[in-house]
């Protein structure tokens, strides 16, 4: 039952988790390496938040593009 719920969650929210973790990590790394946002405090909140937002939009649109 719990396993089934877990699989359901994964298949329904996969785009959100991919956005948060995968895109968030990439955006965070690029932001750090660019040095343009050095003065922004808690930059990771913005970068991972942006990744999560892209993932959430893709989830509700049903497609990435």
């Amino acid at each position, binding site marked *: 039952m719990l396993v089934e719920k877990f699989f359901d969650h*994964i298949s329904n929210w996969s785009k959100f988790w991919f956005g948060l*973790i995968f895109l968030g990590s*990439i955006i965070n*790394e690029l932001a750090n390496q660019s040095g343009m946002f050095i003065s922004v405090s808690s930059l990771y909140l913005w970068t991972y938040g942006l990744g999560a937002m892209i993932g959430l939009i893709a989830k509700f649109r049903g*497609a990435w*593009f």
Partner: protein
Amino acid sequence: MVLINSKDVSSQFSFEKEKAIAKSFSQRFQWEMILIGIGQAMIWLSLWPLVINGIIPLWAGFCIASLCACFAYLPSHESQHGNYSRGNPKMRWLDSLVGHITLITLISPYEILRVTHMKHHAYTNDHEKDPDYLSAHSGSLLKTIKRAADGSSVSDYEKSLEVFANDKNFVNSYTKAIPIALLYRATLLTLVVIFPLETLLLWWMPAKIGTVYTVVFFAYLPHLGTSKGRYKDTRFWSHWMPRYINHSMQLHFIHHLHPGIGHYDEPKAIEALKPFLVERGVPGADQIPDKISYNPLIKIN
């Protein structure tokens, strides 16, 4: 006149004779494919320490990984058809081993690709039952590229689970592969937190490039403009690209007719079977050169 029905085909070109010729090309051990499959996976794996330790730059790693990804599918394809074990139950482990290892580069679970590919062969160009139908008949090359890049082709395979819900073997094999698909996803998401750009450029992007390459050359171009039927669902085609660059997919029709023929034996098999293919009206068969072995099949309009 194109002859379609077997009753219209003279006994000289009977299916039994065609099958006997094809069988003579379906015996050889496919060692090249094993070398390519395991080799590209090992090269891809070695890129990680080489890039992380700064021995080679990330951009070079990306180029090599993308090349590996383009070579990744074909060895698994031979596995899917059991072309390493050749019906020997004691050798089936080899099909499975090569199939699983070579697909790591493409982040794809072997069993899902195997069972959906078997359905593709059984129902080629059937808009409901062929899992590759939308990749092959999207309407344009750009649409096919987009579908492969955004993961729509993977969603097609998920839908086939509903289409073949009553096929116990299909469902069992498919569900058996789901934990592997999740393991791939978990590994990708763990690695990206630790090595963000390396994961992007050594695995995710190359896998996308390899998937687009595979879908375009294996699913789209060989089935473009074809219909249903054993001798009608795949075509002989040629274009500006030498066949060595696209895994000789101009010759993919022979694989649909006789999947047991090893990939590197297909040119010789086609030369031997050409009269049968022309007689049966395989699309484009009349344009097949008499000698294919070293012919790059280039056509510039």
